[in-house]
């Protein structure tokens, strides 16, 4: 039996429960999803273009359950804050598996014109205006998510409102049995609005298999500024298929950064449509792999307007038997003038067992552009390593320092200083072996020892 069939069967069998526990706008998407997936018959695998190195079909093969009945799975929310860095005050939303949980930070702290709430609390018509209407066409990722989706996070910032505090979404996997969580985030930034969002994925129960099917839809209105930072610190038993879709209106600036610190198998897809003139798009990613971690990032930026500037930087550090893949595509459409689009993928293989596959691509349909793309994969600099050792720094520590240093320019892409500091700190922990799969408890202790 293929992986997909179990989810199609589950959706058919429990359709009334699914619908009964979800807002109407989400239920409307299920028929189309069923029709699409019935025809597809399987999720993308290695025989599909763009999925050569990561079979989603394999990722979703285990018998994951879906919490259609909305059983309240207990979670120790406080525990996930142990990974938090002091002195960062955020507006916090927690998603336990696929259930939105508001925290007290949201009560009375949201300025006028800002909403951070469950998709259930968004008026039906408004929600329908967003669902599936960001960048990109209808595909398997969208279909699987839409088939099972019952809840999600809505972040709305009205025209002209500048939100200074970052919004934080903490996704937590918890429970005793293998579970699939369909997750959706909608970010709607109105004209001239500004918002920074930090999302982090945690898995609280080690040894239990979890899968996320996540869609993030970002709407950047005219002259809006949106910063999105996504950190994954999950376990070797967690698989994640996360698709971020973003459409940009005239003069908008988005800065998207994804970081995989610890995980099992991760497939991230970025689809960005630059629809308005004069937009700026920064897309960066970092992946740190050890053990048997697998990280696959795929990006597609389409410039269909004039005077756009996009810059992509993806860096991987892979140790032990970790593997990585990157596929990036820039398209400059017919008639889109004066665009600048750059893409760079740089990788460091720290062991003989690590593997990296990279495929940068450009599709340019006119002459009036400045574009570049490039990829390099190398090893730790032996000269630097010896230099450090000659000063007394033990070889293991020197290696970690060099791996961490390799990521510095990705961190520097983040605008918000508090987020940069946080990521720098988490990187340090990651290379010290104190985060993610080692358990949050480790972070907690390290944090207070350092303070």
């Amino acid at each position, binding site marked *: 039996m293929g992986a997909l069939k179990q989810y199609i069967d589950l959706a058919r069998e429990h359709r009334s429960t699914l619908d009964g526990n979800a807002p109407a706008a989400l239920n409307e998407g299920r028929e189309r999803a069923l029709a699409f997936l019935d025809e597809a018959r399987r999720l993308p695998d290695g025989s599909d273009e763009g999925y050569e190195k990561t079979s989603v079909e394999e990722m979703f093969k285990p018998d994951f359950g879906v919490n259609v009945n909305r059983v309240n799975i207990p979670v120790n929310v406080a525990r996930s804050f142990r990974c938090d860095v002091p002195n960062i005050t955020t507006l916090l939303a927690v998603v336990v598996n696929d259930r939105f949980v508001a925290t007290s930070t949201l009560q009375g702290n949201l300025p006028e014109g800002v909403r951070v709430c469950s998709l259930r609390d968004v008026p039906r018509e408004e929600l329908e205006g967003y669902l599936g209407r960001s960048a990109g066409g209808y595909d398997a990722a969208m279909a699987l998510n839409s088939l099972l989706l019952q809840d999600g996070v809505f972040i709305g910032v009205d025209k002209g409102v500048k939100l200074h505090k970052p919004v934080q979404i903490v996704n937590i996997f918890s429970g005793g049995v293998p579970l699939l969580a369909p997750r959706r985030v909608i970010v709607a930034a109105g004209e001239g609005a500004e918002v920074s969002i930090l999302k982090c994925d945690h898995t609280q129960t080690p040894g239990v298999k979890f899968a996320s099917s996540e869609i993030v839809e970002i709407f950047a209105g005219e002259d809006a500024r949106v910063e999105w930072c996504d950190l994954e610190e999950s376990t070797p038993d967690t698989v994640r298929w996360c698709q971020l879709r973003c459409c940009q209106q005239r003069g908008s600036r988005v800065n998207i950064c994804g970081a995989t610190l610890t995980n099992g198998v991760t497939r991230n897809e970025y689809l960005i449509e630059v629809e308005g003139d004069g937009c700026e798009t920064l897309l960066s990613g970092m992946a740190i792999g050890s053990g048997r971690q697998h990280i696959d990032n795929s990006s597609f930026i389409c410039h269909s307007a004039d005077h756009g500037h996009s810059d992509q930087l993806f860096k991987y550090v892979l140790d032990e038997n970790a593997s990585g893949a990157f596929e990036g595509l820039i398209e400059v459409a017919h008639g889109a003038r004066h665009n600048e689009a750059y893409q760079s993928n740089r990788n460091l293989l720290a062991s003989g067992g690590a593997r990296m596959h990279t495929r940068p691509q450009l599709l340019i349909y006119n002459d009036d552009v400045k574009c570049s793309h490039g990829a390099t994969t190398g090893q730790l600099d032996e000269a630097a390593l010896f230099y450090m050792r000659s000063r*007394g720094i033990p070889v293991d520590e020197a290696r970690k320092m060099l791996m961490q240093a390799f990521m510095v320019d990705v961190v520097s892409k983040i605008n918000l200083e508090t987020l940069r500091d946080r990521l720098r700190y988490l990187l340090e922990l990651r290379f010290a072996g104190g985060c993610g799969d080692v358990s949050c408890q480790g972070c907690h202790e390290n944090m207070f020892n350092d303070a």
Partner: protein
Amino acid sequence: MSDEILLEVKDLRAKVEDKEILKGINLTIRPGEVHAIMGPNGSGKSTLSSVLAGNPSFTVTGGEATFHGVDLLALSPEDRSHEGLFLSFQYPVEIPGVSMVNFMRAAVNAKRKYFDEPPMSASDFLKMMRQKRAVVDLDNKLASRSVNEGFSGGEKKRNEIFQMAVLEPRLAILDETDSGLDIDALRVVAGGVNKLKTDRNATIVITHYQRLLDYIKPDYVHILYKGRIVRTGGPELALELEERGYDWIKAEEENKTGEA
């Protein structure tokens, strides 16, 4: 000067890839001494410093090196550093993304750990950095930058001597420290080395030219040629080389092999 021996090198041989570069080096260094090693290009000067510091690109094929009673060649590069060996690189390596402060903190605390001492407190560490920077007049701004990244030639060499000041080695090897330096920078760097000199430590100055030896006065001058030390003398030997060049050494050595 004393009878105590700091470094004793006996018949040291080493190769890189398949090429033998050091063909039996003998050298004895006592605390308080300054030794200059001179020689034409390709004679093995830098190889000798790399081998003593433990660069894994070179393979020791024979001989021994004893450092205050310890078998130096058996130690990892980091342990050689802890035991008091310091190499000032001819070409200091740039390490983007690693700040000078973190680099030095890691080095200092690794050494303390080696001797079972607790890590230095942040305030003590910063105080020490300030003091040591003064030895070579190193700009405070460089300390917050990445290791050697974007440093000028002179700044890189000052940075080497600054690190030497921090680590307080028992034996410092200065590999072509004068290369790429203008006369003012040379004076500052040499001045730093002289400030760090005591009767307990020793220095090996590897250089091409006599010029540096005007500032760092050697007790002994050795001439390295084709992987062997072929002459040892006092400071006057360096002056003779400056006057006559290396050709007479080459000619004499070729004659010897011819006769043999």
